[in-house]
């Protein structure tokens, strides 16, 4: 079901934990919908010096969080903001289609942590890139509040209720 890279990150997730005095914290998802991720970042001179995460979720969710933490560490805030869920999935050499929507939230959680940091430290609201929404059935990209998938026509209303 999962690629070797996914299994590697699932078995040995990098950067698991909590940063008590984090500069930014971002949280996405909820346990009811299946996956929840919390990211903590420590920022020094515009660079993500340290990153830790906690995740409630399936193998894919844990691997995604781990991969995002590795991709973000040592990057500038601008570079880290460019990390997308799609790039994370590519770095993991692919995720099962049905997991793209629900478990691939790591980049969103990271962006929220960066946003939190900017709001706290600079007092300026960070504007995240518009969130993308992929159909859990056929993986086609859809507008965020789409009622039906433009790709396969399946109803998406329930899927949006997940809060991401």
């Amino acid at each position: 079901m999962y690629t070797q890279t996914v299994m590697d990150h699932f078995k040995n997730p990098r950067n698991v934990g909590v940063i008590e005095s984090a500069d930014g914290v971002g949280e996405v998802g909820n346990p009811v919908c299946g996956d929840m991720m919390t990211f903590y970042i420590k920022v020094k001179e515009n660079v993500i010096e340290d990153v830790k995460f906690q995740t409630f979720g399936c193998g894919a969710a844990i691997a995604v969080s781990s991969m995002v933490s590795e991709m973000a560490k040592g990057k500038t805030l601008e570079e880290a903001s460019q990390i997308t869920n799609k790039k994370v999935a590519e770095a993991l050499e692919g995720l099962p289609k049905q997991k793209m929507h629900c478990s691939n939230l790591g980049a969103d959680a990271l962006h929220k942590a960066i946003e939190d940091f900017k709001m706290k430290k600079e007092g300026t609201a960070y504007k995240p890139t518009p969130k993308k929404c992929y159909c859990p059935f056929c993986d086609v990209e859809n507008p965020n509040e789409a009622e039906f998938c433009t790709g396969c026509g399946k109803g998406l209303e329930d899927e949006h209720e997940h809060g991401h």
Partner: protein
Amino acid sequence: MAVIYTDHVAAMPIHSKVYESMVPYFKEFYGNPSSIHEDGEKAREALEEARGKVARLIGAQDEEIIFTSCGTESNNLALKGIALAHQAKGKEVIISGIEHFSIMHCANALEKAGFHITRLPVDQYGMVDPDAVERAISPQTILVSVMHSNPEVGTIEPIAEIGRITRAKKVLFHTDAVDSVGNIPVDVNELNVDLLSLAGSTFYGPKGAGALYIRKGVKIQPLLDGGIQERGLRAGTENVPAIVGMGVAADLAREEIPQRMSYLKGLAGRLTEDLPKGIPYIRFLGHPTRRLPGIVSVAVEYIEGEAMLLFMDMEGVRISSGSACISRSLKVSHVMLAMGVDAATAQGSLLFSFGMQNKPEDVDHILQVLPPIVERLRNMSPVYRKAMAKKA
């Protein structure tokens, strides 16, 4: 690494005697039971012998058994076949909220075709209230279908009581007994049922053979049109080797059910008793006493089931879970939601289903490897961290 298979509700190995009984029917006695020459006759005899064995297992008469390809087909034939044959009387069908997909989705299809479906609620143990069935029956009700036992949580339903009500009200009653037959005593007359689904693959028989018991005199419309196999109720050449295997499995089950039950109860009982000693914040699902003997259904709070399942797999232990993350529909188990288990808790559900190949040491191994896996996942769970902060 030794594999500990505890996912018998998904699939189980066939009994070696069952396997041996099937082999000649692939190469030696390959005749078509519908042929009238000697080779056909041999296959027909084997088919009828198997019918007798399956009938005896559930206290039915031979001619009340219709062979199908699986439990799902039996359930489809029961629901759709009865609905189509009796729609002149009324278009109301009653099912429970914890049925297998093959009942649930059949009911959805009937609903689309203009039938009215009532879905009965269950209590916290997944139990249907017979009084609720009585209240739900109207003059237009043609069929009630409640499963005999639920494989996800193990609960055994009060089928005989429900059957008394449907009989008094002159409404047909079907039970999906796929997970019961061959595992616990099932008698169609004691249960007061008119139709009953079973499958050989749930009692050490092969996949590909099922049956529907149809009480004598009950009218039903076939779903497959074709030849006149199975009294015209199920067209298509019979899967003779699989049906022969199911017959032998039925005979073995009839002899061994008491021993099997007490053995499996012992394994499940010890896991249920000892698991809470190594893992805090867990709860067992399903009825505490009225349950299938080999099933332990447990919700581990604050973590998700697929992650546990994958780590257990790496330790050689094969299990299942009601988590949304392992279902293709990405929906949490409807059985658990119907029982009032909140979705977050259902995400952390694990299902152990023991079989006769399991050994007491298997329980030891599970008790040894699961607690560290749970601890590891809880240590990386933001939900656990929040819950513990709240408790502190």
